[in-house]
């Protein structure tokens, strides 16, 4: 508490309101930024997911086109075998065949078939007859796989009646080769096959889609080809199967997977899948970035708001401080006016803790009326102002100093020297003696000037009164005693003045 602004803390109120205002603005800004950011991210998510699903679907369709194109090319390469007349006229099962002629015919057909498939990575490219005799390129692997039932088993692979042909993979759980079979005549089948790994070129996807799993499955959802090579021949993983089972052309995206399926040929499906968290990893990074930018924007906005608020409220605070000073201080002396002094002193006394000691010193200028009358009011005002200065010099910032009448001043001593009551009283006595001496030094009365002295009444808290009014009344009684003693002195309130002091 200072001598000038210790009654009403209005600037602090302004500060508190300023703080509340900054916090309020900050909360509003954060809420707004969070809301806008969230909406933006959600909208972006929706757009991104639509795009991703669309792109996945496009990739799947592209793979389907690649696969269909590849299969069509293989079929064409098979069909071209019919360009050699012997391939469809010769029947190795005919009992009327001349053995030597048959050998030469088979050799000729074999040479022709070899020449037709020479640039392709076919494992098989030949003709199998009902008696299991073969011409052309029939691999040991195929011979071992089908054994003596080669013709019968290959016949079951013909599924398309229109063209008398068909595709098959996974015969007896062997998924290493894919077979194409076409009927040449009742007793002959054209067979071509290639390693499933040849499809790597068909399903080659760009590096940016390395995480995408591409699988070719049959109608039983067994994997014929997978970009994960170890999966070949195994059932489609359950999480993927659950999302595509029964679908022929669709894209599904949920929290765990993005899956696209397209039917290929009659009974095969191309399935592209990728875990959602991988494909949306960048989206999550982007969301984090947006939130970070939002947070930074919020902090910047709060700081700017605080700076602007402080700048804007500075004049108000100054005005409030000025008005507050005007309301609480006596303009002439610069000390508290009567009301501010009374309120501040009463608040201090009320809130005083047990064992606290204070003293109320009431001062009255002696013969002040004579000064005004003889030297003028201007000089009187100077005397009053000087009195204020003396009091401010004599007491500390802890003490309350007020002008409580025309020439009456009051000090509630708040500063506390260490020691017992006697010591405290000595401390007050020294203050009173110092005041009398100071007034005497400043106003000697020599050279025709008026001698200005001061009469002082002192009441001690809590012994002489426990309220402001009681204490003030006691001090007033003591002042009266000083006046009665002949002025220019100080008196302490004593117990025989109890009739006026409400202890």
């Amino acid at each position, binding site marked *: 508490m200072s001598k000038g602004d210790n009654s009403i803390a209005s600037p602090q109120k302004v500060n508190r309101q300023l703080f509340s205002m900054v916090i309020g603005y900050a909360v509003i800004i954060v809420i707004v930024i969070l809301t806008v950011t969230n909406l933006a991210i959600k909208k972006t998510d929706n757009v991104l997911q639509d795009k991703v699903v669309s792109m996945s679907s496009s990739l799947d369709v592209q793979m389907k086109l690649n696969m269909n194109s590849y299969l069509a090319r293989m079929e064409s390469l098979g069909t071209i075998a019919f360009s050699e007349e012997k391939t469809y006229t010769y029947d190795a099962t005919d009992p009327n065949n001349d053995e030597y002629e048959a050998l030469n015919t088979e050799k000729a057909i074999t040479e022709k078939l070899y020449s037709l498939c020479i640039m392709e990575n076919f494992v098989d490219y030949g003709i199998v007859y009902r008696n299991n005799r073969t011409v052309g390129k029939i691999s040991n692997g195929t011979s071992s796989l089908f054994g003596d039932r080669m013709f019968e088993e290959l016949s079951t692979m013909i599924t398309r009646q229109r063209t008398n042909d068909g595709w098959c993979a996974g015969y007896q759980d062997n998924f*290493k080769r894919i077979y194409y079979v076409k009927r040449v005549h009742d007793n002959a089948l054209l067979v071509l096959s290639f390693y499933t790994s040849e499809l790597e070129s068909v399903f080659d996807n760009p590096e940016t889609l390395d995480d995408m799993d591409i699988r070719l499955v049959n109608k039983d959802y067994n994997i014929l080809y997978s970009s994960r090579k170890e999966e070949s021949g195994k059932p489609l993983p359950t999480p993927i199967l659950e999302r595509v089972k029964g679908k022929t052309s669709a894209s599904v995206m949920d929290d765990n997977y993005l899956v696209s399926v397209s039917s290929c040929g009659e009974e095969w499906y191309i399935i592209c899948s990728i875990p959602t968290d991988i494909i949306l990893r960048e989206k999550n990074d982007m969301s984090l970035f947006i939130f970070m930018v939002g947070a930074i924007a919020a902090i910047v906005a709060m700081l700017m708001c605080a700076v602007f608020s402080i700048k804007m409220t500075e004049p108000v605070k100054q005005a409030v401080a000025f008005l507050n000073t005007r309301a609480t201080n006596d303009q002439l002396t610069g000390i508290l006016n009567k009301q501010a002094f009374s309120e501040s002193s009463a608040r201090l006394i009320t809130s005083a803790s047990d064992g606290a000691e204070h003293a109320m010193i009431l001062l009255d200028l002696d013969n002040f009326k004579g000064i005004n009358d003889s030297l003028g009011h201007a000089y009187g005002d100077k005397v009053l102002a000087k009195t204020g200065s003396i009091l401010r010099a004599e007491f500390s910032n802890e003490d309350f100093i007020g002008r409580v009448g025309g020439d009456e001043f009051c000090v509630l001593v708040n500063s506390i020297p260490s020691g017992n009551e006697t010591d405290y009283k000595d401390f007050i006595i020294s203050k009173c003696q110092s005041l009398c001496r100071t007034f005497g030094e400043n106003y000697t009365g020599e050279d025709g000037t008026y001698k200005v002295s001061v009469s002082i009444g002192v009441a001690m808290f809590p012994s002489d009164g426990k309220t402001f009014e009681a204490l003030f009344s006691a001090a007033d009684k003591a002042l009266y005693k000083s006046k009665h003693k002949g002025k220019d002195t100080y008196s302490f309130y004593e117990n025989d003045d109890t009739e006026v002091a409400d202890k």
Partner: protein
Amino acid sequence: MKTFSRIAASAAALALILECGCGHKQIVTSQHEQTEITLSWWGNDSRNEYTLEAVELFKQQHPDIKVKCSYSEWSGYEARSRIRMISDTEADVMQINVGWLGQFSADGTGYYDLSKVSDYVDLSSFPDEILSYGTRNGILNAVPIAMNAETVYINKSIFEEHGLEVPVTWDALFKSADVLSKDNIYPLSGASKAIWLYCITYTEQKNGKTILDDKGNFAFTEKDWETAVDFYIRMVDKKVIPQIENFKKVNIEKGEYAGAVAWVSDAINYFDSTQKNGDEVIAADYTAFTPESSGTGWYEKPATLYAISKNTDHPKEAAILLNFLLNSKDMAQLQGVEKGIPISQTALNTLDKKGMLSGLQYEASEMMNSNDKLREMDPVLENNDIINDFFSTCNLVMYDKASLEEAASGFYTALNEKNLQ
């Protein structure tokens, strides 16, 4: 004025933020560029699978190199390879047959000079005499993987079931056929090239001369060819072997063939299933008139070689792949002795440490290495046209279309006219 400056500064800051957040920028992304090289080979399912697996490991170790594979079974591969070589569309790294060196690189310029990439290919693992197989005109064109020879494999279990010993001589072989044919079993079998070489072995031993002279020219006379043709027909007639047009490898598994003449490198390919069925298969002595002369008339050659295309745009990457295929522990373990005992000392050490130097293929290799009568095979002996003509000649006699003398004479004449040497 001060206030105006502040507002202006704030507006400028806001504009900057908006510019950063909403400005239209050109987005440029680039795909990771890989060097793509091609690798071609022939082989059965087993070889294809482990080679593909090895290539995957290679790609993991060298993510900047993409390897595109081209492979198929042997049938037709040679013809395709010829087309590729002639049309300059061959793979960057190739598995080649030793005969192709003379065919496509007589002066040593048909394949890449591997000495230029010796920084990337560890050639110190290969003895000089082995590298000489792949050297033409002083230029190292190819590196052999292993040595190879036609070998007689016998299903000892079948022979013992019929009270027979493993045949070492021609007589014993024909006698075993007398017994086994009663159960419709052939004691021996083979694809056309194996039987062709088997007939040459017999003829060389019987007539005491080699098929080629020191200059590489055919030295067999019409009479010699009569011996060879007659020997083939006798083997078919006496049911020692099935007619080559009827040979089916699957019949080995079925026990219809109690043996086969096949390359060292084909041991697993031919007899893996048979062994898995519990039968004991051994690499028998090279057939001869007497046990002491076993190996006479038999030939050895590099099993296969690896070469780099002379046209490759990426010799460094091709060489890195070549080194991986020849010397890496990964490839050595995956390949094992499938192509025979590897020549690369590095690969050999790997197999030795892993205890992988065992099995039928290893036995066949050891037999080949321990027999000093085997001679280096001239590539002309693997010429498919000659082999096909030989069996057409045999068929003329078998089906009474010509006498033995007429047929052998015709083959002899055609051989000399083709001047294939």
